[in-house]
């Protein structure tokens, strides 16, 4: 009956399960231009929306005259705050417990803010009509500097909050103050700093930038007035949460709302938030009874939808004379823009920034974050990182360098001296986290050896001599980083967004012929979920990954989940997938035992089958079991083979890595060349090495952009100076460095398959590596800190200020 059994290695390979460099199944359609994105959706009679946006950063609206626009043939409607007010939709809740104007209500607070929504028969007419809407503004004083926002005479930005001394995260001390968030032990830390051998102090700025996904944000809203059902296709990183929030805001019953995230062309945090375009499209579809599409253009994306970072981090770090760190103090001034629309778990207004003790065993620490309002776009999302983790990693990795300079020590040695040791895990950090696992010394030693660190330092010293002797105008910088991330939010006990617990889910249905479909509460934006989750499942249930369809993004079919951001898909939904797989296997075991006429406990799992213990020639493959599950009456067992798992992780996961960047800098032109970039990642169990490598390349390239040129810059009038790709740096193949990737494996002890998540590590780790390389090149000339982005002009200026131009 049973065919000849191929060897175990062959059967394992055929599954393309964990560890297989399986090609991405998504790429067949993406590389042929056959993806299906929001803007590809075309429905009969569909209308198009476009925004009138404010040219001012702060102004009162005296009047809006839309008559000329309405008279333009093809224009269906022009919505303003006055039209949305009766529905109470002119303001909306943000993910951070604040409120945000959907359409300008009396005033505008940032350049590019949505003022009116034009609905027309096509995009061209909508764009023409936008120009015909006449808005009379009265200019108001602008606040772009977060340190001036809290001056006693600073203009009042949020008039709607007048008299509110209590915000979503505690007391507000000024009309432009949002919250103060404190962690750690202030008194103990200040005491340690006061009596320390050495204290290094520095202001570290992580500038404002933007996730800038290639596909901008957008949606198609379609209200079916016959069956009362609202369907919204959109660029949503968390479709289920969008459904719940949409229901709560609109009053439409949740079963009558269907949210669909089709293919998404990159998210990086930009597509987590709720934007006025979604609300206006939905209202417009309800009013007109036909579908309405809204897709922002590049400028709108860069100037109005969620930015990232803008953290001014003042740090003090103390140590003994021989380099043992004794304490860390940090105060952050966080520029949140005009509305607090950060996407952080509710109890964490500064995200997980309290991971800022990094990879180091720091006995005592104190952190305070003050959020302030300015006349800039709202946001503060986690751009390819877990909530505020990249800010934290940049801060500590700069502070380590600054301390090394104060101590006159090699910073690689300083790191190694202070790493949390392998035997200290699970490690309780001074700022409240429990690091699940790590082996930092092993990774660090491997990295230093791989790049021949000692040799590089010798070469650098020689170059410095040559430079001083006038033989060269190029310096060498060696940028070191050892980062620790905190990802996989998260345990429902302390992580929720708007009250929605941050678990995730997987539902598996095995078909009678032994193939399967798995649906998850997450949504891929390019991460390759359809490839990797099938691999997790293949190893769990013995069905080849090629025979498993993975589906996400449709709230009518997928189980509830909180979506994809903060590297949470593998730690949370990946765990749910493994757990659901194990439920399938448990039932399969009973079926196999029945078919083999033995007791349940007398069969054992063997890659893709259950075999009788001690008699491996007697077995049932998963294919046979699946068929029997549906087609054979088995006493006491229901027909079918399905399972669902909702996974609430017991802890976060803590991926880490060691990155080293070697950079050549031309002091006369400010140009740089990345000579070598080595990235060692430990993300626990590796599901697909090829996808990991791709993730590292992508994230490191974003990190390169951020560190070396990318920014959202404002002038003093609140004009966005970098709202096009002419000024906003996105590296092309020309600028992108070559990367060498490497790994160690320290599985997460609490994750079912030991995986930790990797998508965001390269962004978190590479930014300090690039930046530290720039700083390191000038260390010999007395540079301790200069702010990113390190574009050619800023590097030239640094060289100039250090007197290197003669």
């Amino acid at each position, binding site marked *: 009956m049973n065919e000849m059994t191929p060897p175990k290695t062959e059967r394992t390979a055929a599954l393309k399960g964990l560890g297989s460099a399986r090609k991405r199944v998504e790429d067949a359609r993406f590389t042929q231009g056959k993806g299906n994105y929001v803007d590809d959706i075309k429905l009969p009679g569909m209308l198009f929306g476009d925004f009138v946006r404010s040219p001012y950063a702060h102004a009162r609206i005296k009047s809006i005259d839309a008559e000329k626009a309405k008279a333009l043939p093809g224009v269906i409607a022009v919505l303003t705050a006055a039209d949305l007010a009766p529905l109470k939709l002119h303001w909306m809740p943000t993910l951070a417990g604040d409120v945000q104007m959907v359409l300008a209500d009396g005033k505008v607070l940032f350049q590019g803010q949505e003022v009116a929504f034009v609905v027309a028969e096509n995009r061209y007419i909508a764009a023409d009509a936008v120009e015909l809407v006449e808005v009379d503004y009265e200019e108001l004083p602008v606040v772009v500097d977060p340190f001036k926002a809290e001056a006693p005479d600073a203009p009042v930005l949020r008039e709607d909050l007048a008299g509110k001394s209590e915000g979503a995260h505690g007391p507000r001390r000024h009309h432009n103050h949002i919250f103060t968030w404190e962690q750690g032990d202030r008194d103990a830390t200040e005491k340690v700093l006061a009596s320390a051998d050495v204290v290094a102090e520095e202001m570290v700025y992580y500038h404002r930038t933007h996730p800038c996904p290639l596909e901008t944000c957008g949606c198609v809203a379609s209200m079916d007035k016959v069956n009362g059902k609202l369907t919204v296709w959109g660029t949503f990183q968390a479709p289920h949460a969008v459904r719940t929030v949409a229901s709560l805001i609109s009053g439409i019953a949740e079963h009558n709302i269907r949210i669909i995230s089709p293919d998404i062309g990159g998210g990086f945090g930009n597509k987590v938030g709720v934007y006025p375009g979604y609300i206006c499209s939905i209202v417009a579809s309800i009013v007109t009874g036909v579908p309405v599409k809204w897709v922002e253009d590049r*400028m709108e994306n860069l100037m109005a939808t969620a930015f990232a970072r803008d953290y001014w981090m003042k740090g003090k770090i103390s140590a003994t004379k021989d380099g043992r760190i004794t304490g860390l103090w940090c105060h952050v001034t966080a520029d949140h823009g005009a509305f607090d629309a950060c996407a952080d778990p509710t109890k964490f207004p500064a995200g997980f920034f309290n991971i800022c003790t990094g990879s180091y065993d720091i006995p005592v620490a104190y952190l305070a974050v003050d959020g302030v309002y300015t006349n800039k776009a709202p946001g503060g999302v986690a751009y390819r990182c877990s909530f505020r983790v990249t800010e934290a990693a940049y801060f500590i990795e700069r502070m380590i360098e600054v301390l090394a300079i104060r101590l006159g020590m090699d910073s690689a040695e300083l790191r190694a001296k202070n790493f949390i040791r392998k035997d200290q895990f699970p490690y309780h950090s001074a700022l409240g986290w429990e690091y699940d696992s790590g082996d930092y010394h092993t990774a660090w030693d491997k990295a230093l050896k791989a790049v021949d660190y000692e040799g590089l330092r010798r070469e650098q010293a020689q170059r410095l001599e040559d430079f001083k002797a006038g033989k060269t105008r190029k310096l060498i910088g060696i940028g070191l980083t050892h980062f620790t991330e905190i990802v996989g939010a998260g345990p429902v006990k302390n992580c929720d967004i708007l009250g929605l617990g941050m678990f995730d889910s997987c539902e598996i249905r095995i078909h009678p012929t032994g193939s399967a479909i798995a649906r998850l509460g997450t949504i891929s934006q390019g991460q390759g979920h359809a490839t990797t989750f099938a691999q997790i499942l293949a190893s769990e249930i013995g069905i080849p990954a090629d025979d498993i369809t993975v589906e996400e993004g449709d709230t009518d079919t997928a189980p509830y989940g909180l979506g994809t951001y903060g590297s949470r898909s593998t730690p949370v939904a990946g765990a749910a997938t493994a757990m659901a797989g194990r439920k399938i296997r448990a039932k399969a075991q009973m079926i196999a035992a029945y078919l083999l006429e033995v007791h349940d406990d007398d069969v054992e799992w063997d890659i893709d089958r259950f075999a009788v213990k001690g008699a491996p020639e007697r077995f049932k493959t998963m294919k046979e079991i699946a068929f029997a599950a549906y087609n054979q009456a088995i006493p006491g067992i229901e027909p079918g083979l399905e399972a669902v798992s909702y996974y609430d992780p017991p802890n976060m996961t803590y991926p880490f890595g060691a990155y080293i960047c070697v950079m050549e800098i031309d002091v006369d032109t400010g140009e740089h060349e990345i000579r070598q970039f080595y990235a060692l990642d430990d993300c626990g169990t590796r599901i697909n090495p090829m996808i990991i490598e791709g993730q590292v390349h992508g994230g490191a390239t974003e990190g390169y952009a951020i560190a070396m040129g990318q920014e959202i810059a404002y002038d003093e009038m609140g004009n966005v*100076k970098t*709202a096009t790709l002419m000024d906003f740096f996105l590296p092309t193949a020309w600028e992108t460095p070559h990367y060498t990737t490497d790994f160690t494996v320290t599985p997460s002890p609490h994750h079912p398959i030991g995986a930790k998540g990797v998508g965001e590590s390269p962004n978190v780790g590479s930014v300090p590596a690039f930046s530290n390389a720039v700083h390191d090149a000038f260390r010999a000339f007395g540079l301790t800190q200069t702010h990113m982005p390190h574009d050619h002009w800023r590097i030239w200026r640094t060289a100039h200020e250090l007197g290197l131009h003669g």
Partner: protein
Amino acid sequence: MELHDEIRIEAPKHEVYAALNDPEVLKAAIPGCQELNKVSDTELEAKVALKVGPVKATFGGKVTLDTAGAPDRFSLTGEGSGGVAGFAKGGADVELREDGNATILRYAAKADVGGKLAMLGGRLIASTAQKLAAQFFENFSAQVSAGREFS
């Protein structure tokens, strides 16, 4: 953004000053000027079509003159709005000095721009403004000297 320059106009100072206060002369000299009306002795209203890089718009604006130092110097302030294209505001100090039969005109202007004009045209604005100013004075100077030849 700041602009300053010095030019020589082949006409006596009082004629140059008069021309600077003549809406017809100004209208012909200002590049892209579609309308220019005197509201009072010290106030003008203008409509000017401008193109800065990819942004093209018609700006409506007001100019206020301060003639306290006439005819040796005067200053002006103004602001204009081009709808979604953005807005501009600024001012200029103009100084006239006799140089034989000619006049040396020296000006220092300061302008701020906002909206799409600043975002898209940012890197082009200074050079565009310089070009427009040069064009204005070329036209202006041509008209004033021409006026002399024919009068």
